[in-house]
């Protein structure tokens, strides 16, 4: 076994190498699962998720995010661990991973473990090692906290299934938005191979839910007692796409995301701005900055798909395939559909309200319930959580607009962008506010 080789590498050095190699993977414990603590075990989980810290890049740290090994027989061009790279390799033993997880967990550094891996020997062999580790952690170490494990495409379906009963979440990364890009940059991978475990996990989750419902029904009729159905991937599955390494448009990306949500019952799709690591003619140059703002806009669009009733082809289309990075996708949609506005707050239905920039899920609900008791005016909206600075351009209260505003695309865009600049600075870490208003108008309307 290959991990015997680095027997004398210190645990500190291994941790450094194998967390550094895992840092591009996104994971999040929110939209997770509630599980109470157990006598004799260590750990519980919270549905709302618990973020323990924030690293220097401002991202949340909630899990011990590591690779089992950074050795890899594959040669994906975008990846630090690819076989052809000459870098230091390390491999944890299952015991080392368990100990780190438990010791970090009991100091309240983390919510649990996020374990991924390079491909050692073969996909099935690697999945076997991952399984061995998680099995040890759940049984011997009695860890009852959150576990997220990568499903390795090409591993046997039996291993994937057994893993599903031990973990809270599983993910198989799609890596790139289209099969063609994948072929070009990850010669050892193919789309069909990836969709296999994704489909298997989806089916497993659906079956598991049905069995649980049956059991509840039977218990109600007092037919069975003291039987339980074990959980299968209770926090659902997620996946990730790299953004900006390949030429796909935002439209292509959110269309893929949409079908992942609809067809594969994905809990989350993550987007990861590509950070140039390797020099390659098929990749962006090393000095290209990661497209953080674009990533941010994709997350916002993702939100619109999941909670706002938007469809991908409403937000973008072949003619306008990319988001305007300087305003959020909802504002972007609204200024391009001014014929649908203004909307009357006292009459519009819930989904129409949701489409107004500055009105979110909470405030839309509040509006709908409050107007049963009386007419709503502008002064009420602020208390309901509406961001008036954005909404004013798109709404009327009792037939009146708040100010005398012309519904004109450039005028509204200009206002929305200057309001958005501070957020943009925060996300990108750049100083957009130093741009002249003229410069960003050019970008904004273009």
């Amino acid at each position, binding site marked *: 076994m290959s991990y015997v080789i680095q027997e004398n590498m210190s645990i500190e050095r291994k*941790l450094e190498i194998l967390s550094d190699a895992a840092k591009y993977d996104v994971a999040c414990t929110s939209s997770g699962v509630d599980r109470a*603590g157990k*006598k004799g075990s*260590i750990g519980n989980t919270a549905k709302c998720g618990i973020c323990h810290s924030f690293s220097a890049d401002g991202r949340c740290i909630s899990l011990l995010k590591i690779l089992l090994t950074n050795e890899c027989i594959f040669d994906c061009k975008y990846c630090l661990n690819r076989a052809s790279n000459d870098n230091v390799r390390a491999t944890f033993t299952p015991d080392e991973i368990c100990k780190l997880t438990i010791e970090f967990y009991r*100091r309240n550094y983390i919510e649990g473990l996020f374990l991924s891996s390079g491909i050692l020997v073969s996909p099935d062999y690697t999945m076997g090692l991952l399984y061995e580790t998680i099995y040890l952690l759940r049984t011997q170490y009695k860890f009852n906290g959150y576990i997220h494990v990568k499903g390795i495409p090409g591993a046997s379906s039996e291993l994937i299934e057994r893993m599903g009963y031990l973990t809270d979440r599983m993910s198989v990364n799609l890596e790139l938005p289209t099969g063609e890009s994948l072929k070009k940059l990850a010669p050892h991978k193919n789309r069909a191979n990836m969709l296999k475990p994704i489909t298997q996990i989806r089916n497993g989750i659906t079956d598991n839910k049905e069995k649980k419902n049956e059991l509840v029904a039977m218990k109600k009729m007092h037919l069975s007692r003291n039987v339980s159905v074990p959980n299968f991937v209770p926090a659902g599955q997620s996946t990730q796409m790299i953004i900006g390494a390949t030429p796909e448009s935002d439209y292509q990306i959110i269309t893929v995301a949409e079908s992942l949500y609809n067809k594969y019952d994905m809990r989350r799709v993550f987007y990861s701005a590509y950070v140039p690591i390797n020099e390659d003619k098929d990749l962006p140059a090393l000095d290209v900055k990661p497209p953080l703002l674009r990533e941010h806009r994709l997350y916002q669009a993702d939100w619109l798909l999941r909670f706002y009733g938007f469809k991908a082809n409403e937000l973008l289309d072949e003619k306008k395939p990319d988001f305007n990075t300087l305003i959020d996708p909802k504002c972007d949609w609204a200024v391009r559909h001014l014929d649908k506005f203004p909307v009357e707050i006292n009459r519009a239905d819930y989904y129409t309200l949701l489409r107004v920039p500055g009105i979110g899920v909470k405030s839309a609900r509040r509006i709908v319930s409050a107007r049963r008791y009386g007419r709503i005016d502008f002064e009420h909206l602020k208390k309901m959580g509406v961001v008036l600075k954005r909404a004013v351009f798109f709404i009327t209260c009792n037939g009146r607009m708040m100010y005398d505003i012309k519904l004109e695309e450039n005028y509204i865009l200009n206002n929305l962008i200057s309001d958005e600049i501070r957020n943009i600075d925060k996300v990108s870490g750049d100083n957009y506010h130093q741009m002249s208003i003229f410069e960003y108008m050019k970008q904004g309307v273009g």
Partner: protein
Amino acid sequence: MENSRKLILNCEDSYDGILTAVYDAFNYRGRSVYITVDSEYNFELFAEYVEIRTDYDKSAKVINTIENKISKEALYMVYGVAISAERDKCNVILAFIMSGLKEGGSITKKLTNPYVQRCYDIRKKVSNEAHFYNEILRFEEIAGNVLCAKISPVANVMVSVMEHFTDRFPEENFLIYDDNRRICGVHQRSQRYFIRENVDLDELIYKWKEIRCDLSIDKSGGFSDSYTQLWKVFFDSISIKERENYKLQRNNLPLKYRKHITEFL
């Protein structure tokens, strides 16, 4: 004549202290009664002050009354407000209980009542802070199998934090010390936790070790937690250099909360 003077009941800043004052307030019907937990702040020259000594029988009676005549939900509300650090909390509680006794269990739904509104706001703030400490609290191993954490919360969130960690770590021995209040939550393996007041943390740790015959480690340290270093290594290497953004980090985790967070020490 005397009855028109403002009456201020000054009580201990604790759940039971405040409820004792509420109990006594009912004995002064017809006068304008206020409750305060710190008379030094905003001392009023022409008011009459009464010192209230915490009486657990009295507070238990008030608790019973709230639960039976108003609702359990109302009791949770009162508790949430009582542990907050808001200046107006005692009078908000008094007014809330008075209205509750008049209107019954529906009081917690009456969001048009300004006191009820205020109760909701305060409780929200308190539960946010409690959740926040579940996230940022860090234990350090101070001796074999004893974990210790320090927190400095604005509200007294000890009970909620102890509940969380007792559920999470049933088999651990741990101490959580609130250095603003000098109170300490103590949990021993497989047992119910308790909270000690007026604690000198060093002394407490020393005694603990004495009981465990574990004085080999002197109280000023001599024991260093090797995982602190490993955690710092992880914390640094998990960040993506090309995305470095301290502004965003500060936004998500403001500097003023970092006092006891291992990775920032």
